[in-house]
């Protein structure tokens, strides 16, 4: 009989544990259904040579990072130093996906021709890389964001780790911090590389 009044306390502790666990989770992160699936195929113009197209097949048999960025994205500025560091240390090749450079900046494109829009995208992206530094092996231009949709992009910046077989192994939402690099990315990179 005596122990029975401890039951509400026990239930409360259980609830507190559940809520405490829940508070540590970020409700805004959406898990990607693309993990371990083949990277979505695409062909996009390169920033350095818009007449040339880049496809993920070009990076076959390499482990590489695809980093989604744009000059209007403030958080991208935060992670840029990390990306430059990764490039300097030659940790892993970086491919930049420039996402909706003009449309995302709320520039009205309805009266712009596709050629004009592409020219503006190139101008803005090149300017940004010239001033902030270019950590990318190459950058491709996703002008209307369609390729972004194929990757499930919903908030810039996002980074994808792709393995030698062309499968997405990890998706990182938000800017890459020192903590992310040391505790998540590098171990994951190590793991994927050692699979052979």
């Amino acid at each position, binding site marked *: 009989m005596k122990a029975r009044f401890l039951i509400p306390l026990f239930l409360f502790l259980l609830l507190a544990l559940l809520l405490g666990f829940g508070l540590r989770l970020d*409700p805004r992160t*959406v898990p990607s*259904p693309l993990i371990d699936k083949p990277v979505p195929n695409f062909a996009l113009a390169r920033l350095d040579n818009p007449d040339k197209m880049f496809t993920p097949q070009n990076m076959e048999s390499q482990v590489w990072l695809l980093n989604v960025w744009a000059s209007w994205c403030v958080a991208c500025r935060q992670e840029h130093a990390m990306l430059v560091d990764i490039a300097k240390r030659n940790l892993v090749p970086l491919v930049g996906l420039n996402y909706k450079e003009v*449309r995302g900046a709320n520039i009205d494109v309805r009266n712009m021709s596709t050629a004009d829009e592409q020219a503006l995208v190139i101008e803005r992206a090149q300017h940004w890389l010239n001033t902030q530094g270019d950590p990318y092996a190459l950058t491709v231009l996703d002008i209307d964001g369609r390729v972004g949709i194929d990757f*499930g992009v*919903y908030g810039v910046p996002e980074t994808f780790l792709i393995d030698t077989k062309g499968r997405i192994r990890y998706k990182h939402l938000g800017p890459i911090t020192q903590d992310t690099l040391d505790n998540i990315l590098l171990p994951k990179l190590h793991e994927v590389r050692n699979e052979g």
Partner: protein
Amino acid sequence: MKVELHLSKLLSRAIYVCTLVLLALFALTSLSMVYAQEQQAQIAPGQADAQIEAKVMHLSHTLRCLVCQNQSIAESNAPLAIDLRNQVREQLQDGRNEQEITDYMVARYGDFVLYRPPMKATTLLLWFGPALLLLVGLGALALKLRQRGAHKNLQLNAHERKQARNLLQRHALASSNPDSDSYTESQS
């Protein structure tokens, strides 16, 4: 008593009539909606755009905006929502059906893009959890009430009755009420 009976009869009749009226109105509006839809089916092909728009809005209400996650892409004005609505429109114009478009979105964004959580093994608790909790609560209440009911049939035996009387006596005396003489009885 008679007035009360009369009023309650009036009330119940009023409720009855109101319910009938509401049902009639509901039936009328649903009928008119069906009629309107039938009319739409006879519209000339030039009006197909408006139909596609209607389908776009309908589908958009079932897809979640990943940026403003409490809204559907129909309600949200986030750039991604606009992009996804355009995607839906293009696919509808290409002739895809609702299921194919939904599958397309889920393949890229996962189950969370569905505004209504799907019925899966992992979401069973989400769907039925509240109902389960309600049942558990009701069950606990029923048990508690039954326990309480068990005490109602207690009969005092003679000894216990005497004890009760003594206790009451003592209480009456303690409150120093001169009229407590009426409670006095032989104690043994």
